[in-house]
């Protein structure tokens, strides 16, 4: 699958001008609210007709304003999971799930049959119920199943977790991961949550004020995201568990990390997400401190904004971000090339 987008669209004073190509896997459209993410997804789905440009999936042109091509939404075979699940209130869960099947010829569709998708999403017990009797998390799982059962060649997910609380999100994320790894349907995933993107995405497209500012693999791009809770992701492998202190040791390119015990087998791949405000820098190897994790690295770049500075480190090839005050930057005389030690106060883990 490939998705090629090159469009321009102006609504009021907001101008969206985006151009990128998405590869298989999960492509995250990442940016603050109002950056144009949802409009872009609506354009791909056919809910908005762009004023200028092209959209193509697998080489099939869906929109080309110069040639007057505009494939209507019901002929695109692009699944859409909305932020508000939009289940049909007058139909049962089963009828909702099967709605798209009336219209799709099952040739070439990637997703499997009813039973396997119901099982994948854990919605078997819900099929005879009505949508308004479901919890928010259940509704979203049904909405995902409904989109998949229409045999889409591309799945759009517009902040599918935004309307849910933290525990519901944790309930759904594993299902989306199974979807990514199990069905092979490529996904365009809209989010403004770094943690979600770090956990799910293969490729990241960063949108800012209607423009694409960066495209690339998640580990390279995420540190560039100008999100308020900036951070970086590290690929790691579970190296061992310490039963006495309930800790897990991870091996990453940047060095070893000790974290609260993870429910993952030795050898499992995990993706550690480290927020830049949880990283302190020291010029000497720190001693007698409570933090367990100290990684050696070198300053690559310093970006100042107001009283804050985002320091980008290279730790044996892995990127780590630290957020300091500009005063500290000056006091430590930090500059590109200077060796430092990063002290990590806490790590959040996203399994991958």
């Amino acid at each position: 699958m490939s998705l090629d987008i090159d469009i321009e669209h102006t609504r009021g004073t907001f101008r969206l001008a985006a151009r990128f190509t998405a590869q298989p896997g999960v492509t995250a459209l990442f940016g603050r609210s109002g950056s144009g993410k949802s409009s872009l997804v609506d354009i791909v789905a056919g809910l908005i007709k762009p004023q200028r440009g092209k959209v193509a999936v697998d080489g099939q042109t869906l929109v080309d304003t110069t040639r007057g091509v505009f494939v209507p939404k019901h002929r695109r075979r692009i699944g859409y999971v909305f932020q508000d699940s939009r289940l049909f209130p007058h139909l049962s869960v089963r009828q909702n799930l099967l709605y798209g099947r009336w219209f799709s010829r099952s040739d070439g569709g990637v997703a499997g049959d009813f039973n396997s998708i119901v099982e994948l999403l854990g919605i078997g017990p819900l099929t005879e119920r009505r949508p308004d009797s479901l919890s928010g998390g259940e509704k979203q799982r049904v909405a995902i199943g409904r989109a998949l059962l229409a045999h889409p060649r591309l799945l759009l997910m517009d902040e599918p977790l935004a309307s849910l609380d933290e525990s519901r999100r944790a309930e759904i994320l594993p299902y989306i991961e199974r979807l990514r790894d199990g069905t092979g349907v490529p996904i365009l995933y809209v989010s403004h949550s770094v943690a979600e993107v770090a956990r799910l995405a293969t490729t990241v497209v960063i949108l800012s004020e209607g423009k694409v500012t960066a495209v690339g693999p998640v580990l390279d791009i995420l540190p560039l995201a100008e999100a308020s809770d900036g951070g970086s992701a590290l690929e790691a492998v579970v190296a061992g568990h310490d039963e006495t202190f309930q800790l897990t040791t991870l091996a990453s390119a940047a060095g070893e990390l000790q974290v609260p015990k993870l429910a993952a087998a030795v050898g499992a791949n995990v993706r550690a997400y480290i927020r830049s405000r949880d990283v302190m820098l020291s010029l000497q190897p720190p001693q007698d401190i409570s933090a367990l994790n100290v990684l050696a690295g070198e300053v690559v770049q310093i970006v100042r904004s107001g009283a804050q500075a985002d320091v980008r480190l290279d730790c044996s090839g892995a990127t780590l971000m630290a957020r300091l005050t500009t005063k500290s930057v000056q006091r430590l005389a930090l500059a590109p090339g200077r060796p430092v030690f990063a002290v990590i106060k806490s790590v959040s883990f996203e399994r991958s």
Partner: protein
Amino acid sequence: MTEEEWTAVRLSLLVAVTATAASLPFGIAVAWLLARGRFWGKGLVDTVVHLPLIMPPVVTGYLLLILFGKRGPIGSFLDQAFGIVFAFRWTGAALACAVMGFPLMVRAIRLSIEAVDTRLENAAGTLGANPLWVFATITLPLCLPGVIAGAILSFAKAMGEFGATITFVSNIPGETQTLPSAIYTLTQIPGGDAGALRLTAVSIAISMAALLGSEMLARRVGARHVAA
């Protein structure tokens, strides 16, 4: 009740049911156009649909006579092409009632279509349903209470229609004499008061039954949407 009174009651029911059933598909189509359509001249269509509501019924009836009468442009065409005649027939009474009830029907259906969330219709579109299927499977079931309300309003209007009917198809017992016409006739003849009162009671009973029936239907449909 005399045989003549029964005839008027039966005829009125036939006229009202025919008028409602025949205009319902058009009412739904026009309501959908006004609720969801974007086209030039929408304001004009809206005005024309509402005309029977604001014009004197006699004027509407006279216009129908000019257009659908035996020598009217539409009436003569329908007569020659399909053999359909409206003038001074019960079908003409049904046409007059349908026209008079149309604004009420369209208004109720239009409001309920506007209340259907377009985001649900968009979702159905992304699942592969073309606009016609979206309407049949999403919009129509969700606006059904409004469709029922619109049909009942049209039926009630048809049961009571007098001015346009009597102008268009006159007051012929057994052919075009509906309940209101029969009541009017009875009030014009000496000793007709008792018959007029009996028909008035029947008229009230039918109106109330229609209202109760619509309430029950609407509740059942509503319950199906919300229940379980």
